[in-house]
């Protein structure tokens, strides 16, 4: 786009959400939210402006005033040239979330709560939400995208107090309607509580040592999200998030750097119908699978039109805005470690002795995405390739490079987990999935918290 060209886009968004909150078996409240509004982005004389409102009066006047603001220290912003798109997409549901009976929502909460009660869990905080986002996007280049995405999410935070106090926070979410909540989910919740009770009752501490570690899909997914997904967001690499989500160990002059060994292959794919699904991004660019890391090296960054221009390339459809109120920025979608060939049993066989970590509670990573930590919730010792007694709060605290260079083998049991990812200011929480198969890490420093 040439410097003097004028660009404008409008995202008209209708959000619908029903949420029920249950605390220790008592319905604390039921909420229905319907809101509509428009987010308008303008590129004028290479300056970027954003306006959002849910009142249409005075819109033109305010935009005129906004685009006439003038500062001394202004960055020239350009967008990559992209083909205009016209498209409509929607997710099919058995019953539209807007038409779901509140009784059905309450019934799901009741079933989940009864599982916890039967297992003797006293402190239970559960929320269940069904939502939809209807969006009409159009820009001055001729793009027009109409989309409709429904989502459901069940979240709980429970406290297990058999011997030691253990808490578990879990999000179970899908792109689609209420039919996504199946009895299988209830079975897995019951199984999880039973395991947590065993860990609380019998979990043993481990001293600081180096061990082989098998991580479940849940742990693989969060490590990929934090230490591969975020650092490959191009806006961070250029410094645009420096005062918010931070920057990256990847630098503008080293965008093909090596992160881990050749077993490491990571993709981000919004076209998979999981919690982070979309087919066109919030700049109207067609979404596609990106191979972020190939055989241990950075292969492709997550790009919007602004960062694609900086890199003299095309956007790969990674711009997302959490609502009409905020500008679209570079985001992940469904980000996962590509599966390998080994079964879970084969990973245990290869580990021989070590630790298996199935769930986590506490985790964090630094703003360059190097220094990371994951503390296990459900975890077990592996002895002679068999899962044995539970272990209490095993901590992996390491660097991104040590973590991914210790990757010894990759399972084939790929699965996805819903999560909410935060970035930007004001904070933009968006639905994503973290994903991957089970993996084996060799010789990892580990201890009990």
């Amino acid at each position, binding site marked *: 786009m040439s410097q003097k060209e004028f660009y404008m886009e409008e995202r008209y968004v209708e959000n619908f959400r029903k949420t029920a909150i249950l605390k220790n078996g008592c319905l604390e409240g039921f909420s229905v939210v319907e809101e509509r509004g428009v987010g308008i982005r303008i590129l004028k004389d290479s300056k*970027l402006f954003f306006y959002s409102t849910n009142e249409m009066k005075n819109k033109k006047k305010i935009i005129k005033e*906004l685009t006439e603001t003038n500062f001394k220290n202004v960055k020239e912003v350009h967008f990559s040239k992209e083909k205009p798109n016209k498209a409509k997409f929607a997710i099919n549901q058995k019953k539209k979330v807007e038409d779901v009976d509140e009784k059905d929502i309450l019934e799901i909460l009741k079933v989940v709560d009864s599982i916890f009660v039967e297992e003797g869990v006293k402190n239970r905080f559960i929320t269940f939400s069904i939502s939809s986002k209807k969006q009409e996007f159009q820009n001055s280049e001729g793009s027009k995208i109409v989309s409709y995405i429904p989502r459901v999410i069940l979240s709980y935070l429970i406290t297990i107090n058999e011997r030691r106090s253990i808490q578990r926070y879990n999000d179970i979410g899908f792109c689609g309607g209420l039919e996504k909540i199946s009895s299988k989910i209830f079975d897995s919740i019951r199984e999880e509580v039973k395991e947590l009770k065993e860990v609380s009752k019998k979990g043993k501490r481990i001293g600081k040592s180096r061990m082989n570690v098998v991580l479940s899909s849940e742990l693989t997914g969060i490590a990929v999200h934090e230490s591969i997904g975020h650092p490959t967001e191009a806006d961070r690499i250029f410094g645009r998030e420096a005062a918010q989500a931070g920057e990256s160990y990847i630098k503008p002059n080293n965008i093909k750097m090596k992160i881990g060994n050749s077993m490491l292959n990571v993709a981000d794919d919004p076209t998979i119908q999981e919690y982070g699904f979309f087919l066109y991004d919030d700049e109207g660019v067609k979404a596609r699978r990106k191979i972020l890391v190939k055989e241990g090296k950075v292969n492709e960054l997550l790009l919007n039109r602004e960062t694609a221009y900086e890199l003299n390339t095309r956007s790969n459809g990674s711009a997302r805005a959490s609502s009409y109120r905020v500008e679209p920025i570079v985001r992940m979608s469904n980000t996962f470690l590509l599966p390998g060939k080994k079964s879970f049993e084969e990973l245990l066989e290869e580990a021989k002795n070590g630790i298996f970590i199935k769930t986590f509670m506490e985790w964090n990573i630094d703003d360059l995405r190097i220094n990371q930590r994951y503390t296990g919730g459900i975890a077990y010792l592996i002895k002679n390739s068999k899962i044995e007694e539970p272990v209490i709060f095993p901590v992996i605290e390491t660097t991104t490079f040590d973590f991914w260079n210790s990757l010894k083998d990759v399972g084939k049991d790929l699965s996805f987990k819903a999560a909410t990812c935060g970035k930007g200011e004001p904070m933009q929480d968006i639905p994503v999935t973290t994903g991957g198969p089970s993996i084996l890490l060799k010789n990892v420093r580990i201890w009990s918290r």
Partner: protein
Amino acid sequence: MEQIDEKFAKVIFKTMEKEVSDLIVFEEREKKKEVKFFNNKITKTEYSSSFNIDVFFTKEKRIMFSRIPTEDIEKAKKFCKKLIEISKILPPKEDFYGIASKGFNYRKISNFDKNIANGGGLEKVENAIEVAKEKGRASGILSLKTISHFLISSGGAEIEEKLTKYYFSFRFIKKDYFTAHKAVCGAFLKYLDAEKVANEAIELTNLTNKILKAKAGRYFTIFEPLSFSSFVSNFAFAASIFDVEAGLSFLKEKLKKAVASEEVSIIDDPLLKNGYNSRIFDDEGVATRKKFIIKNGILTTYLFNTSYAKKYKTKTTGNAGLIEPSPFNLVVKGKNEKNKEKIIEDIKEGIWVTNNWYTRFNNYATGDFSTLPRDMLLYIKNGEVVGALKQLRISDNLLRMFLNIKAIGKEKEQVRWWDSPLPVVSPIVGIDNVFFTSVR
């Protein structure tokens, strides 16, 4: 500044009033002006305006809370009728005891700045950029808001207020990735000296250019206001009776007991002059008031709304949140406040944390957590900064840390940021035996 349009909220109130047991309609109009900058350049200028109406109502102890569509009054009325129908099938919350029917004598405190309301202030960001641009890279945000609130309740509250807010976040990055972050907030532009904020951040990065090998262990640690604010926010949320009941609080069964060193008091002050979150009424229309959450180390109260207060046979603290009582502005007060220089001078060996993020709890009920120092992390020996540390993490327990508070500074600033969504007026705070882990 536009006149508050009471009509919409009142029409909604009248539509629902006779069909429900309790009703609160809350109207908010907000106008925002904002600039985002990075690498010493403004990258985006933003305006926004919004008009929102939230309703909270009960029907025979069945609780609903909703944001209603506001583009058309007839549509909104229809929506509200639908909400009432939904409420009929909900199970009752047996321990709900109603909304406030008294406590409506409001203090006349203004946190409204005409300068912000008239659209001025964004230019201040240029002063900060000018200070930084020859020395390194500056990034951040300046946000200015003008807000009107109107509340009407079936308990008899009817009140409005006008507020303004500023928020300025400034992060400075210089050679070899020595970084510092300041994030200040308030209600009146005259208190925002963007140039001073920038200079203070730059000065932090100039304290050393030497990187030392970091060693895990327990250290006497001083926390800058921005860093300590994240702990204070977490502490205050844990004081909400909702969190206590849900098993999400390490303050359960700690009322009237020591939860911090006697050196420290934490106050929730919704009436704070220049407070970023100051409000003269809470979400059920009760007049807000200043209260000690911790007084000289003792937990003096949980945070209540009217219903929770009745349940626990006490008085509301004016902290509704109708579902979850919440604090407004937090203020840290010391028994023996000292100059920052004196606190640093007295340190034989210690660490100075200037910012942290990713505070995550392993267990909210015990207070076990970890957090990552971000920006300058300084090593102090015999009262002098001798170098910077990298790759350390705080892994501790929030209760234990508060009980180990040893020093509280005099000079305070009002801060908020990602890791501290609540505004906190805090000085530098010194804590003994803070546990650091290392990746090596």
